[in-house]
Every structure is written in structure tokens, then in C-alpha cells.
């Protein structure tokens, strides 16, 4: 077991995460499926980007009816991805590059092909029967919302063998585990321990609000669920240091706040409502939705951190928006109904922003400067496209485009054999959008992203500083100050597609000299009068305020 050379226990607060799918990242053996050997060969690329932690989508044995989120065995590697030895080598190589790895931990449910469920459904008397949630009727927990609205009509599924219904919050082939049973809690802890001992640095814990069911409730965010999570965290703290638990709880900030507890549940949680509001603010050319959600976000314990992102492996979720906002987002970002799935939009960053480099940069600029640890989704650093016709959310999980060559450099297999087809259209296809081409161009999105990350990492103010919004009268301009000790950074973003002038009230910083953080250009000293800036379409500035 190895570890990175940096040992701060709260490393995740300064981390820059990179989310990838082993299956579609790099195929080393030409079978059309990405694997750990392929991924290991690309670690220099990831490190050079400035990434400090990888988040792997599920790499466990699975029937792949939900792309690996239907786990059939928690303690081994899917054979298509390699062996445990391959994984150990990968882990060593990651740590040797001062990076870390978190893996997916799907705790709410298993695959119906998991041995536990096979035994549980074998008879009502089987000892594992109570590892899942059963009912004679399908009207218990009536009114609990259905998450996969496009495919599921009920949270109950009929098991003809034992003539009972089983509970599932996601697909019907993903039965929910019964966390009221202490044996289940212990078994999940054993699975966590297995991977922690192998050397992973933490887990992104999937679907955490749904662990416990109670009559008369929404079966979400229940106190009993928090008790289970506290149990897992307590065990983690008892045995390990420097590990991270990251919650996927697609809820309002005040509800997610409970998942941090008193620093006794999760170290991190995704800030889901922020993401759609960044897109909304951009389209509205109005900072209002973004500022409102950040100001509505409660404080979290000192050692905790938000995870923020623009896009990930799922749809651009619109669960945490109002009906009006959802309609707006659909109309503005998913006019093609095929792009809509469940309660969201299955598109990557670049197509969402119509390939507009200025908007892509602005959105990344905001992501890297708002409070929280940013998560990049593989391929977005080069502006990869998607294929909304692939079904489910597979369209945003297509092979990484490494070069303009065979299968985009992802695999030497015949194209027909690939786990997912590569994007090959004229705009986003691998012939035009690929790592190799962008490496050669200083002003490519890839190299620009690298410089952006470097600028972010040049100051801890972005990862640990406070935020105060300036709210100039021009609502098209988002301006905020990040402060940490004596360090202050002023961020100014033009959300509009037209040039904007803005007057900033910076008299509290009179005397400071703004130094633009990318080009190091010195701007006029701040005085008592409003500080006037002009910004081109979708421009943004990061200024370090220096007392010189």
C-alpha cells in the first residue's frame, strides 16, 4: 500500500478532482473496453493538467444495466477493466505522482445479480431476506417520489418467486439494501475497509439520502439515514486518517448541510443546486440565481468542503430548481427533446454552450473561483461533445478522444467492438477535438484549462477563503471577493454576450493594487471612488489585491 507524499488530512479542501470512467478512458489491450493499464498510461496527462485526485466511476463486477452502478460484487474489479494487481499498480502510480484516488461506493442498492439479493429472493426464510426491503403490498411509502421518471412507474417491484414486492429507489433491477439491519451496515463497512486497505483515498458515496424508509415520510434525509452514515464515518475515523467521504445528495443546501453533521458524517458533499444556476445565470445574463443559491448555502464545519462541478456522468440534473427555472433550462439548453432525460439534460459542457469557447472559459473560470473543490469531467478539458442518441446517459460517457487516429486513440479494437462508439461528427468528433492536437496549440482549450488550474492553485484563497458578493448595479456582472487571512482575490465575470461596464464599490480596499492573475498585468490602484472596469463579452478577471 502506498500513499501520496502530501499528508494534510484535509487535502480534499485544496483538491482538484477529475472524474473519469475506466471503461471509456483508455483501452490497453484492444478489446474495446478501457482498463486500468490504459488509465495508468495516461496518468502523466492527468497530472500535467493539474489534477490532484481522480474519481473513478464504478469499476466493480456488474451486469452493467446501469453502467456499473448496479454492483454485483463490492470487493473485486470488473474483469474487463483488469485485475486487482492492475488496480494496485495503478494506485501506486497515482500516488507516485502526488495524486489520490476516490472510488464509487454505491451503498443504497445492489444489482439484482448480487449474490446477496439472489439469496434474499430465494425464499422468505433465507437469512439474507432481511438485507433488502420487502412488502406484501406496493402501497407502502406511498407518495415517495420516483427518481428515474422516464423508466420507472413505482418504487416497488414484484418478485414472483417469493410473491412479495421489493423496494427500489432507482431502477427495478437495483433493489435497495435494508439499513435497518445492522448486518448490512457491517457488510458495507467491510467493503469500504477492503478498498481502504488496498489504498484508495476515499469514496464518493452514491445516493445517500435514501438509505432508510419510514412510513409517512419522503424516505429521504431521515435521521435514521444520518445515523447509518455516522456509523460508517465513525468506523473510518477509528481506523484511518486522511481519507475522504464525499456525499452525493441531490438536495437543497440546507438539507445537504446535515450530511456534514458536526464533522461526523461526510467530509465533502456535492453542491447540486449551484450547477444548474450557473448555466441559468449565463443564459439569463443575470447573476441573480447564482448569488441567491450561494448566499442561501449554510456554513459547514471547518474541516468540510463542498464539491462543485459543471458537468458529470449524469444528466444536468434539474431536480433542485423551481418549475419556472426548469422550463427555462429545458427551453434554453435542451430544445431537442431527445436531450432530456429523467429530470435533466444529458449533454456535455461544450454542446450545452454551443461550442462557444468564451462561454466555456467563463463557466470554468467561475467553477474554479467559487467556494468548493472543483470537479472536472473527463473530456471537458478539451471540449468533447456527446451523443444524445445513445440511450440513458451513455451519450456523455463516450471514449476519451486522445488523437485524430483510430478510434480517437482510445482503443485499437475494431470500432464496432468499442464499449461505446466514439464521437465522430464534424464539430466534436475525435478528428477535430482531441488531446494530441490541443497539446500542440498553446491557446487550445486544454492548455488554457491547464493555466486556469495553475492560477487557481497559486492561491489557497480559492479553496479555503470566504466569499463576499459585491453586487454592482449592473446585474450582468458577477463580482465577488475571496479572502483568506491577508490574501484577497477579486473575481469579476461578465455573464453577458455583450461588452459591459461596471462600477465596483471597493473603497474598503482603497490603496490596493489589482494584479491580474493570468497575465500578471497591473491595474490602476483602487481609490475611494467606484472602481470602473469594462469587460468584453463573457470576459472574466481574477485580481490579486496587493498592498504595494
Amino acid at each position, binding site marked *: 500500500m502506498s500513499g501520496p507524499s502530501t499528508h494534510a488530512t484535509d487535502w480534499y479542501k485544496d483538491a482538484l478532482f477529475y472524474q473519469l470512467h475506466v471503461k471509456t478512458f483508455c483501452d490497453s489491450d484492444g478489446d474495446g473496453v478501457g482498463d486500468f493499464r490504459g488509465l495508468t498510461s495516461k496518468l502523466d496527462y492527468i497530472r500535467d493538467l493539474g489534477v490532484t485526485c481522480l474519481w473513478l466511476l464504478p469499476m466493480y463486477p456488474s451486469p452493467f444495466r446501469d453502467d456499473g452502478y448496479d454492483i454485483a460484487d463490492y470487493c473485486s474489479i470488473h474483469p474487463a477493466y483488469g485485475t486487482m494487481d492492475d488496480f494496485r499498480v495503478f494506485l501506486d502510480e497515482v500516488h507516485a505522482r502526488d495524486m489520490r484516488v476516490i472510488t464509487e461506493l454505491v451503498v443504497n442498492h445492489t444489482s439484482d445479480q448480487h449474490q446477496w439479493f439472489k439469496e434474499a429472493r430465494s425464499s422468505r426464510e433465507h437469512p439474507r431476506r432481511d438485507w433488502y426491503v420487502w412488502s406484501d403490498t406496493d402501497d407502502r411509502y406511498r407518495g415517495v417520489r420516483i427518481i428515474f421518471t422516464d423508466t420507472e412507474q413505482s418504487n416497488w417491484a414484484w418478485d414472483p418467486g417469493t410473491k412479495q414486492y421489493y423496494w427500489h429507489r432507482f431502477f427495478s433491477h437495483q433493489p435497495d439494501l435494508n439499513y435497518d439491519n445492522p448486518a448490512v451496515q457491517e457488510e458495507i463497512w467491510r467493503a469500504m475497509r477492503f478498498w481502504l486497505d488496498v489504498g484508495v483515498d476515499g469514496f464518493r458515496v452514491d445516493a445517500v439520502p435514501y438509505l432508510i424508509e419510514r412510513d409517512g415520510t419522503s424516505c429521504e434525509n431521515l435521521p435514521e439515514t444520518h445515523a447509518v452514515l455516522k456509523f460508517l464515518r465513525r468506523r473510518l475515523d477509528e481506523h484511518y486518517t486522511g481519507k475522504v467521504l464525499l456525499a452525493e445528495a441531490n438536495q437543497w443546501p440546507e438539507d445537504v448541510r446535515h450530511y456534514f453533521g458536526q464533522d461526523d458524517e461526510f467530509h465533502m458533499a456535492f453542491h447540486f443546486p449551484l450547477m444548474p444556476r450557473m448555466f441559468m445565470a449565463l443564459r*439569463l445574463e*443575470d447573476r441573480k440565481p447564482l448569488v441567491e443559491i450561494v448566499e442561501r448555502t449554510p456554513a459547514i464545519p471547518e474541516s468540510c468542503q463542498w464539491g462543485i462541478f459543471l458537468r458529470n456522468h449524469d444528466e444536468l440534473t434539474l431536480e433542485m430548481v423551481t418549475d*419556472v427555472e426548469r422550463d427555462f433550462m429545458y427551453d434554453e439548453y435542451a430544445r431537442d427533446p431527445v436531450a432530456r432525460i429523467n429530470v435533466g439534460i444529458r449533454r456535455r459542457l461544450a454542446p450545452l454552450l454551443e461550442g462557444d469557447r468564451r462561454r466555456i472559459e467563463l463557466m470554468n473560470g467561475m467553477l474554479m473561483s467559487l467556494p468548493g473543490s472543483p470537479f472536472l469531467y473527463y473530456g471537458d478539458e478539451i471540449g468533447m461533445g456527446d451523443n444524445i442518441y445513445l440511450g440513458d446517459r451513455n451519450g456523455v460517457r463516450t471514449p476519451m478522444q486522445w488523437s485524430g487516429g483510430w478510434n480517437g486513440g482510445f482503443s485499437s479494437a475494431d470500432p464496432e467492438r468499442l464499449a461505446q462508439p466514439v464521437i465522430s461528427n464534424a464539430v466534436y468528433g475525435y478528428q477535430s477535438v482531441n488531446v494530441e492536437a490541443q497539446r500542440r496549440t498553446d491557446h487550445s482549450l486544454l492548455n488554457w484549462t491547464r493555466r486556469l488550474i495553475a492560477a487557481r492553485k497559486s492561491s489557497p484563497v480559492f479553496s479555503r477563503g470566504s466569499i463576499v458578493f459585491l453586487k454592482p448595479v*449592473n*446585474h450582468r456582472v458577477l463580482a465577488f471577493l475571496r479572502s483568506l487571512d491577508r490574501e484577497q482575490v477579486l473575481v469579476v465575470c461578465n455573464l453577458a454576450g*455583450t461588452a*459591459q461596464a461596471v462600477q465596483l464599490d471597493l473603497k474598503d480596499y482603497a490603496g490596493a493594487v489589482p494584479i491580474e492573475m493570468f497575465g500578471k498585468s497591473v491595474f490602476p490602484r483602487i481609490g475611494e471612488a467606484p472602481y470602473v472596469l469594462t469587460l468584453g463579452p463573457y470576459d472574466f478577471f481574477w485580481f490579486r489585491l496587493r498592498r504595494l
Partner: protein
Amino acid sequence: MPQPSLLTDDLVQQLMAVGQVDILVGIPTLNNASTIGPVVRAVHLAFARYFQRERTVLINSDGGSEDGTPAIVRDLSLDEPDTLVVRHALRTTHRISAPYHGVPGKGSALRQIFAAADLLQARAVAVLDPDVTSVTPEWVRALVAPVVGDGFGFVAPVYARHPLDGPLVTQLVRPLLRAAYGLRLAEPQAAEFGCSGRFAADCVELDVWDTPLAQFGIDLWLTGRAIASGCRLCQAPLGPRTVATGTHRPGLSETFGQVVGSLFTLLGTQADTWLPRTGSDPLPVLGPPAPPPAEPARLDGERLLQSFGTNVRDLKSVLDAILVPETESALEAAALGQPADLRFPDDLWVATVYQFLAAHHQGVMRREHVTQALLPLYLARTGSFVLQHAGTDAASVDAALEALCLEFERAKPYLVQRWTGAPSR
């Protein structure tokens, strides 16, 4: 020499921050502190309910209020339960109050509002009266939606009123403008209206703003301008229009002089537009009509007629200069009877109005004297109409008003003849 600015630097700064908008609602004010709050609330509710995605701004153009009206506009809280929806709007809510400069009056306020609309490239503009207590968010929708959604250039309101109410409109302004321009507008001089941003921008550049027409008859002028400019007109039912009690409004004599003076002046400046038109066409009415109030405002027909005889005698020298002998004789004959029996028939009223209008145009005497001399005749006509229709149902009164409009139309060739002929009796 540099041109004076329509917008102050401070206002331009505020407008810069607002940027391009889709909808601008303007409210001209002067000492409206007691009534402005609900109007502002209604506007923001309209933005939040009906124009969630549009970029909006409310601009209050104030004529120097001393009762704190601008502060109320600026600081009005929208956090009450009934307006909480505003806080959940998609976009930033903009509200600006700025003093206007220039000739005191609504014209200068509107000019500033139109100039702001021009600068902000507003697609649609709506103007509301700050004294009206019956304003609802639906008013804003009704005035704006036809512009934004259907491409109309000017939206005139239709108020729900009893046909015996508003006699200056129903007896004179409405039928005269209908006959002149050939368009059946219910409220040609309404304080509330909607228009396109382009119409507003075009108006900014015109020469009307420093004239009495802008000061006293800007509502009428805008309607006339909309017709003359060829923009698409429609009407929008708003419901009852209730003005706050205690609101300072000029007396009848002053109002009559301002309205009729503006009306006649407008027709004088736009003769090329209306002279060739014959007949009349209906205008599209977008939205269901609101039911009128069951009871009309109280009008004492006999009292209106009481001084008719005296007035006709006293004004004889003036009427000699304005009216043809047949009309004057008919009026004198009508004035001889008892007020309760007096009748002022449609054809006589139409002939009287047309002869006054021609006299105003031809300048047979000071134009203020012409309009002042029409007032007692108008009162008599109104009194006669009220007496004739008291106790009849609203539909019957409506039919009588329609008959009056048709009489104005039928006699239009006579007006044209009087207008284009040499001044004569």
C-alpha cells in the same frame, strides 16, 4: 451648441446597469405617495407572473414630488406574502425613479420614459397612471403581451365602464376620432397604454414635446400619432378604472378646455391623415371584455341643462362666428324649452361639433375661445342624452352611443367640406 440631454448622467448610469430590456413599464408621477405603492407592486407581480423570462424594468419619471413619491418607488418592499413571488423571479428586478426635466407635465415624463426605452432597446413599453387604484398585474399583461407576442405597435385600453359614464369620451372624443380616422377606438385618450419600443423611440425625436399638446393632451396625441404612423393598433380590456378619491384633478372647465383643445389641435396637425378616410373599421380586441359596473356614475341631466338657454343667449356673438345659421337657430330653438323637455338630437350635436372644429382650424377667433364656447353646448348635449336614457338598460345606451358614432361618420363629408372650404358661416 451642444444639444441638451434628455436623460441625466445619473439616470444614464442606472440605465446602463439595467442594460437591454424586453419590457419597460413607465409611471409618470407628481405627488402620488398615497397611491403609488400598489401600482408598483402590481407591475412587479406582472413581471413575476407573466413575463418571467423577459428582461424588465420599471421606470418612474417624477415631476418633482414633495411627498416622497420617488422614495416610495425606490424602497417599496416586495417581501410581503402576496408579492413574495417577485423574490423568486428568474431575473434581477429593476426599479428606477428619476426626476424629469423640462416643461412640467406628463409629456416631459413620457418623453423621459420613451428616451429610456430607446436607450434600453425595449421591445415593449407600457405606461400606467399612478392614481388608479384598480391597476392589477393583468393590466400590465394586457398592455404588453400584444406587443411582445403579436407584434402590435400600440395597445389602447378598453375600460369596463357604464355607457353613461365618461360623457366627454362617449359624446365627443370617441365618435369624433372614430369618424375622423376611421378606427373604432373605445378610449382614444387613455392614460394607460402599451406600445412597441420602436414607436416610443420614434416619438422621442418628434417636435411635440415642448408644445401645449404635450403638456395637456399627450395621451390623445400619442393615439393620433400611432394611427398616423401606420403602426398596428389593437385594444386590450382592462376592467374598471377607479381613480383614488382625493386625487387632485382639474375641474370640468379646465379639463374640457385641455381635452377639446388638444383634440382639435391634433386633428389640425394630422388633417392629411384623416381627411381622406371614410367609414370606420373595428380594431382587434385582445382578451375578453370585463363586465361594466351595474350602475353609472350619478349625472343630473336636468342640472346640466339648466343654464343652456342663458348660455346660448350670452354666447350669441361667439356662436355667430362659429356656427352656420341653421345650426345656431336649431340650438336657440332647443334652448327655449324647459330643461326636462329639452332635446339635443344627434345630428344637431354632430353639426355643432364639426362647425366648432372647422372654426378652430380656420382660426375664426382665439382658439381657446372656441373650445370654451363649446363647453355649455356639450353640457346640454350630455344632459339631454342622460335624461333621454335614464332608466334604460346599458345595452340600449350602448346602441344609442353607436348611433351617435354612425351619425358622426355619416356627416364626415360635411366636416371635410367645412374644413377645406373658406372660412364662412
